[in-house]
């Protein structure tokens, strides 16, 4: 004989699954998209894909430049050791 409690519970679960099924798909899609963007931002350059973030991080240049200048002076370097950054 089928356990009545079990079968009723199973019925509710099935009902819940039917109705929440499309919603779960959307949530998974949203999370997957977030994940994709995160991976792209973190690792795209390792894979040779130009990082779209560099365009925006250019704005940080003036702030970073001063700190970089302080850093290479602290390290005992008179001039900037890097070609790309010309702080002095």
């Amino acid at each position, binding site marked *: 004989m089928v356990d009545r409690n079990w079968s009723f519970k199973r019925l509710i679960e099935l*009902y*819940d699954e039917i*109705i929440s*099924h*499309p*919603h779960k798909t*959307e949530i998974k899609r*949203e999370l997957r998209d977030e994940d994709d963007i995160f991976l792209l931002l973190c690792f795209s350059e390792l894979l040779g894909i130009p990082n779209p973030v560099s365009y925006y991080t250019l704005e940080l240049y003036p702030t970073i430049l001063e700190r970089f200048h302080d850093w290479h002076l602290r390290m005992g370097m008179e001039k900037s050791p890097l070609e790309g950054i010309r702080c002095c």
Partner: protein
Amino acid sequence: MSSLLLAAIGIGIFLLGYRYYSRFIADRIFRLDPNFVTPAHKYKDGVDFVPTNKFVLWGHHYSSVAGAAPIIGPAIAVYWGWLPAVIWVVVGTVFAAGVHDFGTLVLSVRNKGQSVGTLADKLIGKRAKVLFLFIILILVLMVNAVFAWAIANLFVNFPATILSIFIQIPLAVWIGYSVYKRKGNMLIPSIIALAVMYGSAILATKVPALQVDLVKWFGGEETTVMFGLNGVSMAFFVWIIVLMVYVYIASTLPVWKLLQPRDYINSHQLVLGLVILYLGVLFMNPEITAPATNPNADISMFPLLFITIACGAISGFHGLVSSGTSSKQLNNETEARFVGYLGAVGEGMLALLAIIAVTTLFATGADFSAAYSSFAAASSGGLGNFILGAGQLATGVLIPADIASTIVAVIVISFAATSLDTSVRLMRYIIAELGSEYNLPVLTKAHVATTIAVVTSAALVLLPQGPKGFGSGGYLLWPLFGTSNQLLAGISLLLISIWLKNQGRNFMPTFIPMVFLLFMTIWAMGKQVIFEWSGIGTVDTSILLFIFGAAILGFAIWVIIEALAVLSKKQGPTDINKSA
């Protein structure tokens, strides 16, 4: 006639259709193969392609296709008497809708889970894809206009519903967030949401202060408010603008924030509504007082009946769901019969219920004939009659009729609002796709495309003049909605026929319904466009209806030309079938 007997006969034929006809189609025509690896397994990604239990998939499929349309159509079409409407719903479901929904599912499963639009491109060519996009564009435009009108109409006639409809929005957002952020169970929050909605509906029914009766606020039907508009026109105008602002916001939000949780609440409402109303029929067994046929109809039921009931007899929209989501989740190919065919049967049962609710509402046949005095009266009043009739059926399960009517109106408005939201979103995608097709990058911007979608829909619903004035004539577009929906079904049936022909199989089970649908569409549009809307006939001219009717007529002829061209070609299986 007893309504219980009618329901039993209808459901009996549906089940016979499922037991015998769909099995014949599955074994002899589609030749379903239990060993075929479905896209859900082949391309399993945990999001779109997920092998799903057939009951779960059927439930999901059915709740996506069922909405307000299978209620509105039959509630209007009983104008010709209940018998023609019942026959068309039953025969249409068994021989046309079932095969169409089942067929689009199988076609898509056999072709990597691709949608009907992509398959049109592959099976016929690029022209067919553009044709397909235009047909869908017209269809969604009609959905926007007709459903916006239907909601505004219900807001005007059932002001007690407004409170719970507006409460549903924050509740849905709350459910969306709580599930997204905390990954909680949805069942409990959505039951709370339903309780709050129905609680406020009951409260608003009993407390007139909670009803947002704009017509009364604007001073009633007789008063001119501004721009020469009376109270009713002004109420329509305000509600349609409010709805358009709402759909603009709703359709640009991510799906999980509002649309999905709303759908979730609506699925509960669908189940609840069907159970209560069918139980009402079972316990009350009300007599069908409406006449079986209407010999005094002011407009012939041929071909108008066949386009007035689209959803519930056959609807092209189902093909979009079958080939868009369900085909990607089918666990085993043989289950396509259960999901697709029974999905159509479920829709047929909803249409049958709508017919019963309307035809048992009136005390006598004379009362019915007075309410359904003309086709125009049937069109504008059909939905309201359904709600009152359903309220009366609900008294069978001891729910007071006034409260039940408000709740049924809330259910219908919720369905219509979700359809509106989905179809504006769809329209935005199509505009973007046409933009990239024709090198107009500005159209691909979400807000540009949404603005175009919303503004054209608002203009379309506000322009036709109804008997109650400006804005109340949206129902005039209903036959156009029906025809564009049938055309979409026609093109999907054509694709299935081409696929079957390429495999060397009998394609008559899909070809005959296609010919029937196209014949009725062309007949209806030809008659109305030429003799009614163009100004040649006696009835007043309508440029708007003329333009859209002529476009649909043109598309229908285009589909036929494509069909003839492809089907008359003698060719072996194409590449697409090798992959199948």
